[in-house]
């Protein structure tokens, strides 16, 4: 069973601060995704990373896939209240298209 551990589980910071959340596993993944979920809604895909060491930027969000394809990070610059939500990572192993979801990081940005 592939496990994806996210940290921190909860994070509450002031608007304008920077933050990083982590997604770690002992398993190797062919690809890894990050999703954001807002209250009352299903998770929505933010990004997919597929190459070890890959860095992708989405406005103020920077995603990195670890060189060994076992971990990933999400960095948010100058956080805004609209960034509030549950952030989930998810990975697919080589030869297995079933997605495994992480434990989630609940982020609150205080205006």
């Amino acid at each position, binding site marked *: 069973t592939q496990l994806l551990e996210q940290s921190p589980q909860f994070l509450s910071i002031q608007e304008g601060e920077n933050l990083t959340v982590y997604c770690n596993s002992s398993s190797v993944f062919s690809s890894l995704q990050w999703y954001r979920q807002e209250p009352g809604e299903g998770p929505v895909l933010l990004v*997919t990373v597929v190459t070890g060491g890959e860095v992708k930027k989405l406005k103020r969000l920077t995603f990195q896939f670890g060189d060994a394809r076992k971990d990933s990070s999400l960095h948010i610059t100058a956080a805004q209240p609209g960034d509030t939500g549950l952030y989930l990572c998810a990975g697919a192993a080589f030869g297995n298209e079933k997605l495994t979801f992480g434990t989630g990081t609940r982020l609150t940005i205080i205006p």
Partner: protein
Amino acid sequence: DAGITQSPRHKVTETGTPVTLRCHQTENHRYMYWYRQDPGHGLRLIHYSYGVKDTDKGEVSDGYSVSRSKTEDFLLTLESATSSQTSVYFCAISGTGAYTEAFFGQGTRLTVV
């Protein structure tokens, strides 16, 4: 938006009664999943399907069964609902290929009293 709908969106049922939740997709995706989401637990996989009549258990499958008789429909059944099954249930779909991205339904809030 991916064509995926869940029904019902809300349901209250009594302990011991059977309950069936439906997930319908119009994307012809191979994979379909049922998750439950509880406070502090993120998403936990109940069952998933990788084709018509092909299903497998997830990490929290006890007390649940599934069926997929058509590509577009994936049913989740609680044979005898218990209060511990009070949760928000999400269906998701994903296709084949290296980037197995998932698209989620709006969720079903189930309360067992």
